[in-house]
């Protein structure tokens, strides 16, 4: 019994220590004046985490918009309210689905790749050798990836929403015959720029920070063996997904739950 309590306490301390370490890690990586070289490294990472994630994010956005329109239509038509389809698709996407689903896809596509890449650099002593050359790997390797993730995910989320709304249009208007004017008009009159688009973007930025932070920290902090890399990659996806869904509830409660 005592052993169990001791074990629990030790685990608690380990978790706190890891949180402290990751906080320091974030502070040391994120601060600092970007140099010309830093911009180049950041652009390169924007390509890897951002541009290469475009396809999966946009295709998913298209299908989710189409499914939303299809499901929404079958329910709304019973009440004769299919004119509200545009409003429903847009609000669902902007407030919830785009930030959350794009973040989950980003964690699976880019987050796991970041962890594996940094982890492999650690396992092959590339990070250590960089330190011995007198270059701080936090600034050279971690910072560009962190900032690239932080900028790329909100942009991908915008793309997700745009394509999703178009997917809804294809199904709702082109296929099911909802009046085009009411699809766009309903959207225009009901979507608030700050309240809906703005809050969705704030969510996306929070998710971007959390997912990228988890991914680069897991890569930097892992045990440098094949098993260590595989565990850390899995942890990145699991922790990021849980963090995104948990934070989404908190943010939704604060933004739309009547607290404000």
């Amino acid at each position, binding site marked *: 019994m005592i052993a169990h309590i001791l074990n629990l306490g030790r685990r608690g301390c380990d978790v706190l220590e890891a949180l402290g370490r990751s906080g320091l890690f974030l502070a040391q990586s994120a601060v600092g004046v970007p140099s010309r*070289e830093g911009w180049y490294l950041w652009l390169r990472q924007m390509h890897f985490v951002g541009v290469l994630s475009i396809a999966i994010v946009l295709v998913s956005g298209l299908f989710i918009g189409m499914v939303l329109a299809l499901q929404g239509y079958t329910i709304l038509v019973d009440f004769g309210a299919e004119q509200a389809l545009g409003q429903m698709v847009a609000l669902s996407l902007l407030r919830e689905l785009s930030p959350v689903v794009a973040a989950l896809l980003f964690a699976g596509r880019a987050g796991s790749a970041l962890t594996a890449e940094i982890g*492999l*650099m650690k396992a*092959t*002593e*590339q990070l*250590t*050798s*960089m*330190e*011995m*050359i*007198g*270059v*701080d790997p936090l600034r*050279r390797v971690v910072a560009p990836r962190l900032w690239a993730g932080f900028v790329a995910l909100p942009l991908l989320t915008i793309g997700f929403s745009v394509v999703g709304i178009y997917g809804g249009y294809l199904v709702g208007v082109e296929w099911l015959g909802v009046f085009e004017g009411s699809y766009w008009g309903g959207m225009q009159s009901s979507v608030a720029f700050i309240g809906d688009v703005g809050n969705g973007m704030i969510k996306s930025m929070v998710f971007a920070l959390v997912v990228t932070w988890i991914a680069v920290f897991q890569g930097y902090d892992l045990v440098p063996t094949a098993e260590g890399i595989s565990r850390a990659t899995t942890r990145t996806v699991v922790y990021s997904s849980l963090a995104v869904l948990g934070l989404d509830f908190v943010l939704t409660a604060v933004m739309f739950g009547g607290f404000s």
Partner: protein
Amino acid sequence: MIESPLVEVKGLHFSRGEKTIFSGVELQIPRGRITAIMGPSGTGKTTLLKLIGGQLTPDVGRVLIDGHDVHELSRKALFTLRRRMGMLFQSGALFSDLSVFENVAFPLRVHTELPEAMIRDLVLMKLQAVGLRGARELMPAELSGGMARRVALARAIALDPDLVLYDEPFVGQDPISKGVLVQLIKTLNDALGLTSVVVSHDIPEALSIADYVYVIADGQVMAQGTPASLDVDEDRRVSQFVHGEPDGPVPFHYPAPEFFRDILDLEGRP
């Protein structure tokens, strides 16, 4: 015997978890010479290099490089000091996304403002020194283990450091590569006026180029001296190691219960 050593290790204690790695190590690395640090596997030779390079912090004790206490320096000052050091890692540790040329150019690009033409000349000179000028366009994945280590050596000396640390440079090399590396370490040390620290358990290779040797075992300096004096050392632990005898004070067997009792599964019985 040593006048103004470049590196001094004083009263070094270091442990990892429950395991004590060093308990009171004292070393002095003379300037302009090759010092070999030898010892059986698992005695913490690589750890010692990491302590000298400031990547690990000792529990007690100091490491002085040219009078600077490595572990008292700020992060920025430590990185500045490291520009005067080169380190050759066991794996080579080349940056896998950069070509051979760019790997060697890396320290020059990040620490100097030299024009591109001069960087090119310097990189080709360093590659020429290790015999790989023709391999400049290759990627690290296309190199053999020995070639990767030579490129890493060219990178380690790119900024003309005062001190080069070699971590097991001969491990896993074929006889030709070994010979090339032995000759390179010696030639570069003499030609560039470096101070070299070679951590190794390849005795013939290390002894053939070292000016001074430390043997480390059980967390302490077990013996020190010139290669010739170690060869005739009468301490049984030293002679076992230097002459590669399979059994002796360092036992062949990992600690275990008495063989007869163990095989009959009598342990724990009266």
